[in-house]
C-alpha cells in the first residue's frame, strides 16, 4: 500500500526527533547530514523499497546502502521504525555506546540486516554496482540504491564507480547525492567544489535528475523515473538543507559532526513537535 505524503511527513518528523534524541544521548555524532537525508530515507523504507523486515535476507529484496555512513542515525531510526528484529526501537538511545548494535557507523556485525558496513567514504556506490551486477546475472528484479554525501563525491573511487555503472548499463542501480552543501570543515565550495554536479553525472553517462530532496512528491517522481529508465543507471542529485528541521542546525557547518547539548536537544524537540 503506497503511503500518503501526509503519512510520510509524520514518519519523517518522528525520525527527526529520534535522530536528535539519539545523538543527544550519545553526546557525539553527525546530526546535520542525518537530518538532510530524512525524506529520502523515509521514502525508501516506507514507500519504495521492496523489503520484508521480517525476512531481511529475502533474496529478491531491494537494497539500500548508506554510503555516507556517518548519517547512521537516520538509517537506524528508519530501520527501527520499519520493524527489523535487529534494530530495536527501544535501544536507539544506546547509539555509540559500548555493546550497542547502534555503532558509530553502520556495522553488519552488529546489525545483520544492514546491506553493507560503511563509514569510509567513497565505497558504497561500488558495492551497489556489485549488487546490481549480481541481480542482473540472477535475473532478479531487485534494485539497489546508494546514498552519498556531496563531500563524499570528492573521493576518486566515486568516479571510478560512475564510469563503471554507466559502462555496464546498470539500470537497476540508483545513486543519490545528498547535496546539502556542507562538509566537516565548512561549505563544500570552500573545501573542494563539486559543482556542477548534475553535469558531471550526465557526462559520466548517468540519467540524472535534480530534485528538492525534502519534497516527497519530487522524490517519488524521481524514483519512478529512475525505475522507468532503461539501459543506464540513474543519479538523483537531491538539493537538501543540512540540519533540516531544526532552525539553529540548518545550514550550520558546526552541526556536521557536533552533538547538540541537552538544552539544544530540548529546543530542537520543541521545534519538531
Amino acid at each position: 500500500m503506497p503511503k500518503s505524503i501526509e503519512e510520510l511527513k509524520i514518519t519523517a518528523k518522528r525520525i527527526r526527533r529520534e535522530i536528535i534524541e539519539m545523538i543527544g544521548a550519545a553526546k557525539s555524532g553527525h546530526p546535520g547530514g542525518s537530518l538532510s537525508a530524512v525524506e529520502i530515507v523515509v521514502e525508501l523504507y516506507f514507500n519504495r523499497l521492496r523489503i520484508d523486515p521480517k525476512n531481511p535476507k529475502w533474496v529478491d529484496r531491494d537494497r539500500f546502502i548508506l554510503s555516507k555512513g556517518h548519517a547512521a542515525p537516520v538509517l537506524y531510526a528508519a530501520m527501527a521504525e520499519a520493524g527489523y528484529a535487529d534494530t530495536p526501537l527501544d535501544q536507539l538511545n544506546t547509539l555509540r555506546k559500548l555493546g550497542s548494535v547502534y555503532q558509530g557507523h553502520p556495522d553488519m556485525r552488529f546489525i545483520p540486516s544492514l546491506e553493507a558496513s560503511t563509514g569510509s567514504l567513497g565505497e558504497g556506490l561500488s558495492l551497489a554496482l556489485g549488487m546490481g551486477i549480481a541481480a542482473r546475472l540472477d535475473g532478479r528484479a531487485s534494485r539497489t540504491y546508494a546514498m552519498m554525501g556531496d563531500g563524499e563525491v570528492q573521493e576518486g573511487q566515486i568516479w571510478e564507480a560512475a564510469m563503471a555503472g554507466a559502462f555496464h548499463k546498470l539500470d537497476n542501480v540508483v545513486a543519490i547525492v545528498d547535496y546539502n552543501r556542507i562538509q566537516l570543515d565548512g561549505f563544500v565550495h570552500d573545501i573542494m567544489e563539486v559543482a556542477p554536479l548534475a553535469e558531471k553525472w550526465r557526462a559520466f553517462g548517468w540519467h540524472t535528475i535534480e530534485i528538492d530532496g525534502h519534497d516527497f512528491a519530487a522524490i517519488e517522481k524521481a524514483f519512478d523515473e529512475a525505475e522507468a529508465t532503461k539501459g543506464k543507471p540513474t543519479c538523483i542529485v537531491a538539493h537538501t538543507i543540512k540540519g533540516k528541521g531544526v532552525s539553529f542546525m540548518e545550514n550550520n557547518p558546526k552541526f556536521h559532526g557536533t552533538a547538540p547539548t541537552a538544552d539544544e536537544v530540548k529546543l530542537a524537540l520543541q521545534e519538531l513537535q
Partner: protein
Amino acid sequence: MAAKTKFEIKLGAATREAFGRVLVELGRENKDIVVCDADLSKSTMTVYFAKEFPERFVSLGIAEANMTAVGAGLALADKIPFVSSFSAFAMNKGFEQLRVCAAYPFVNLKVVGTHSGISIGEDGPSQMSIEEIGLACSLPGFVVISPADEAATKALVRAAAAHVGPVFIRTGRPKAPTVYGGDQRFEIGKAIEVAAGRDVTIIANGLLVAQALLAADVLEGEGISARVVDMHTAKPLDRETIARAAAETRAIVVAEEHLVDGGLGVRVAQVVAETRPCAMEFVGIRNTYAESGQPDELMDKYGLVARDVAAAARRVVGRKS
C-alpha cells in the same frame, strides 16, 4: 612425506597460468563464480574465464579500488567473486577496500594477485609486489596463500572458492618449478613437509620452496639434514608444524620472495617465540626495492636462490644451542 631423492628443477606452468585454468573449471562447476579484472586479464590469465563466460566476467578498467569494492558487492549479493590484478595493484590500490569492504564485514571475496615478487623481471619495482603478504596478513579474518607450483595453485584456488570468507592468493609470472606430484592433497592452513630432516627446518613459500629443496640436497652432501616445509598458507599459520620443527630441529630458516619486514618469516618467528624458541635465519628482500633484469638474475642478485638458503641454514646450524 617425500623421500630424500635429489630434487631437479622441472618447470611447470606459472602459478598465474594455473590460476587462470582452474578458474575456468570452477566457472563450469559453479554458476556463482564471477570474475572481475582491471585491464590485465591477458596477464592475470582471467582471459580464459572471460572467453568461456563473458557474461560472468566483469571488466572494470584500470580502477582497482572500485573493482575491489564491486567484488565485495557481488559477494554481499551471494556471488563468489574473484577479483584479480597484479599483486602490486590489487593489494596496494585496493587495500582500503579490502579493509573496509571485505575484512571488516567478513565478506566472501577472493583476491588473486599475479606478478608477485621480483621474479616478474624486466618491468621493475613499480610492478613488483614485495609487501603484500604483510599487508594481507594484517587484515583480520583474511586467509593468505602463496602457492609453490601449478598443482598447489589449482588445489588452493579451489580451496579458496570453497572457503567462506575473504582470501588473498599470491601468484607469480614465471614458470614455476614442479614441487608436487598429482596425488598431493592441499588444505588451507596445513603446511606440507616436502622433505624430511633432523638438523634444521627450512620453511618456505612460493618459488622459494623449490630453492629450499635444492638447498637441502646441497646441505645433505655436507652432512646437514634439512627438513623442508611448504608453508603455503601465511594466514592462518600452521602453528603445530612450526612448533614441531622448532622442537625437533632446533633451528629454522624462513625463505620467501618478499620483504623480510612483515613477511612470512616474522610471522613464523612469532610462533617460534610463543612455543619453542630456537635460532632462526631469514632469507628475503632486505629493506630495498629491486630493479629491472631477467628473473633468474634478479633472484640471484637479491639473495633468493638455493645458495642463499643453504648459507642461512649453515649459519643457523652453527648458532644452535
